[in-house]
């Protein structure tokens, strides 16, 4: 990508369409003309991933597991079904596995080969998750990566890295924050961050 294009689409896209914008419009027009896509369906998909399918779905799963021991057991045994019971199913979440953080083990998820990510519970992946630095370092220097995210774990804690190299998608079940016993499911869900469900962060502390 040239300096110009970069500048263009990062900051001034609304002023003049960038070369990329024009390429995308041309492809969409052609695929529509050839009868392969329905632009109205694209609008539905974009709205879904901007407003309906995102990390708040996963946060509800985590909060339920923190409140309901039966659900937690189900989630750890058969995550796909347990998550489906809350209404979160489908694309890039067809085969789910939930992995639980404990005082001894911290889980972290990566896809070193591309960008595999549990869309049904976390939505579209953030740019850093798809970036070369994260994919390269997560498997070799997980503690260094965690430090970049501001997470320092005791040396005694084992780090478990899940490289999602097939169609199984992983959701980290973080530890319930200290001092949260009085909170209900909805308040607990607000403590659950996207990064805590990837394993590069921890849930927010109770304030």
């Amino acid at each position, binding site marked *: 990508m040239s300096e110009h294009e970069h500048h263009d689409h990062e900051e001034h896209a609304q002023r003049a369409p960038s070369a990329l914008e024009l390429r995308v419009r041309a492809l969409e027009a*052609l695929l529509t003309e050839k009868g392969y896509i329905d632009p109205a369906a694209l609008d539905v998909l*974009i709205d879904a991933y901007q407003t309906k399918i995102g990390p708040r779905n996963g946060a509800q799963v985590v909060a339920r597991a923190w409140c309901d021991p039966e659900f937690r057991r189900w989630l750890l045994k058969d995550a796909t079904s347990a998550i489906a019971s809350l209404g979160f199913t489908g694309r890039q979440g067809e085969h789910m596995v939930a992995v639980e953080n404990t005082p001894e083990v911290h889980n972290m998820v990566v896809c070193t080969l591309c960008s595999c990510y549990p869309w049904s519970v976390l939505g579209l992946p953030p740019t850093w998750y798809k970036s070369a630095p994260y994919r390269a370092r997560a498997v070799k220097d997980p503690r260094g990566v965690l430090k970049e995210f501001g997470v320092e774990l005791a040396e005694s804690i084992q780090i478990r890295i899940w490289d999602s190299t097939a169609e199984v998608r992983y959701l980290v079940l973080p530890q319930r924050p200290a001092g949260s016993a009085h909170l209900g499911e909805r308040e607990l869900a607000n403590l659950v961050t996207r990064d805590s469900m990837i394993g590069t962060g921890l849930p927010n502390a109770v304030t």
Partner: protein
Amino acid sequence: MTYRSHADLGGLDVPGAIVQEPEGEIFHAPWEPRVMAMVVAMGPTGMSSIDLNRATRETLPNYRSLSYYEIWLAALEKLAAQKGVLGESPPAPKQVLRAESAMAAIKRGFPASRSAPAPARFLVGDRVRTSAVQPPHHTRLPGYARGKVGVIERVHGAHVFPDSNAQELGEAPQWLYTVAFDAREIWGDSVALQRSIISVDAFEPYLEPA
């Protein structure tokens, strides 16, 4: 024929910081959501498969200098051209995603699980050695995990075999396993202090008993 993936990044010395983003920030240019949606919508047309998509992306010569949605766009353009979709008489799409059924389709998803062709060769707890050979086609065993000894931790059933499907040789379902490795087995003793376990999801043909 030589096959070179530019996407196998695990363990490489890649400079640059990991740039964090707030939760709501998922697109960075107005064309990005259109590309995402086009890729999703092209799924049901049968023009390609998730495996052929990945193979097409990872072999783009400029893979490492493109942003992720630029990679998706370039691969979609390339596949559409290869498959004659943009030509005078395009093949009929298997199915076209319509606005009224789009939500139902993504909520249903596209499972990769298939009936098992044979009993599983390995059980949880078995020690296995991964293949040391880099095959001359798309594959899903990362370079860092080649020729290493690990333990079968989970058995996921039979799934579409990407190595075959990406070459359009059929789905050829294979058993899929989570194989866990001690970090020292992968990286040597230099990182022993990190006390970590790394797992990959590996298809049966990648594995031999150890």
